[in-house]
């Protein structure tokens, strides 16, 4: 199982690595462009990320535009359900306008920062990702 961590803050990134690293391998992106490069590379290999943890306020391309690009890609290439990534939106911004915009593109869960490790683990369980 492979995860994608998209987070520019070092502390949050380390925490996500620690949690997700227990359940699978992961790739790291510190900005939105890098995230899409990794996502596309994975798809071109015929593989997919089981879960993407996606920060909103990020360099170059924000998390909402990354989310939109991913969902547009899934629709454009008519990906099967098992090739579509679960997306957890992570942000310190609260459920502000940008997070409401994100809901239009479809995320699977929202995790406010600073996030609770047990909440993230519960989400992994809910998504059946605790292999």
């Amino acid at each position, binding site marked *: 199982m492979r995860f994608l961590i998209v987070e520019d803050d070092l502390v949050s990134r380390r925490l996500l690595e620690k949690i997700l690293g227990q359940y699978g391998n992961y790739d790291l992106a510190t900005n939105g*462009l890098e995230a899409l490069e990794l996502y596309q590379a994975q798809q071109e290999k015929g593989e997919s990320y089981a879960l993407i943890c996606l920060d909103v306020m*990020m360099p170059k391309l924000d998390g909402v535009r990354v989310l939109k690009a991913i969902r*547009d*890609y899934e629709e454009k290439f008519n990906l099967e359900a098992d090739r579509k990534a679960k997306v957890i939106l992570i942000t310190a911004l609260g459920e502000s306008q940008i997070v409401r915009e994100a809901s239009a593109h479809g995320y699977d869960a929202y995790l406010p920062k600073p996030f609770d490790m047990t909440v993230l683990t519960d989400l992994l369980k809910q998504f059946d990702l605790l292999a």
Partner: protein
Amino acid sequence: MQVMVHRRERIVITAIDVINELGVQALSTKRIAQMEGVSESTVFKHFASKNAILHAVLDTYGQFDSDIIESIQLKELACIDSLFYYTEAYTQYYENYPAITAITQGMDEMRYIDGLAPVVDAIKSKRRCFLMALIERGQKEGVIKPEVLPEVVADIIVGMVLASVGRWRSESFGFGLNRFCKVALQVIVDGIVINPLQQDVCAAVTKNER
């Protein structure tokens, strides 16, 4: 990559990189086209002029302003905590995206470009006005001294961040911008709160919550 990121978005990102490396004056549609590996006509398909690109750069620069303000309101933070949250939201973002601070430094220059003065002024005004509103709220709540002028404090905070960013850039990002600005903001806050002990209590509660 072209599949996933719209050309228009890539142009704005590249424009920020150009401004960061060479300054506002160096930005041209020709240079962007070269860096993107496309023809200038491709750039013009998305932006009618260099000024239009700069407008989009400024939109990107201010894109989180409303969300940061709304976030503070949603979290119902105390006024001093709001000041720290507000400042840290930007300095943390700048620390993770150093190139965007070229826009912070270049905004005065952009005011002299056709059509951009209102955009620049709107961004600056929104941020300053929000800081003033926080100070006024603190005064009403009896946390901040009634004799301080909100516009003076707002300008001091904005000036502190601007000066810190300028030094950070000139010192090749060689110190922790976020940490430095937190320390500097504490100095400002210590000078405006009515009861330093009350401020310490707020800080301790916030620290425990974190």
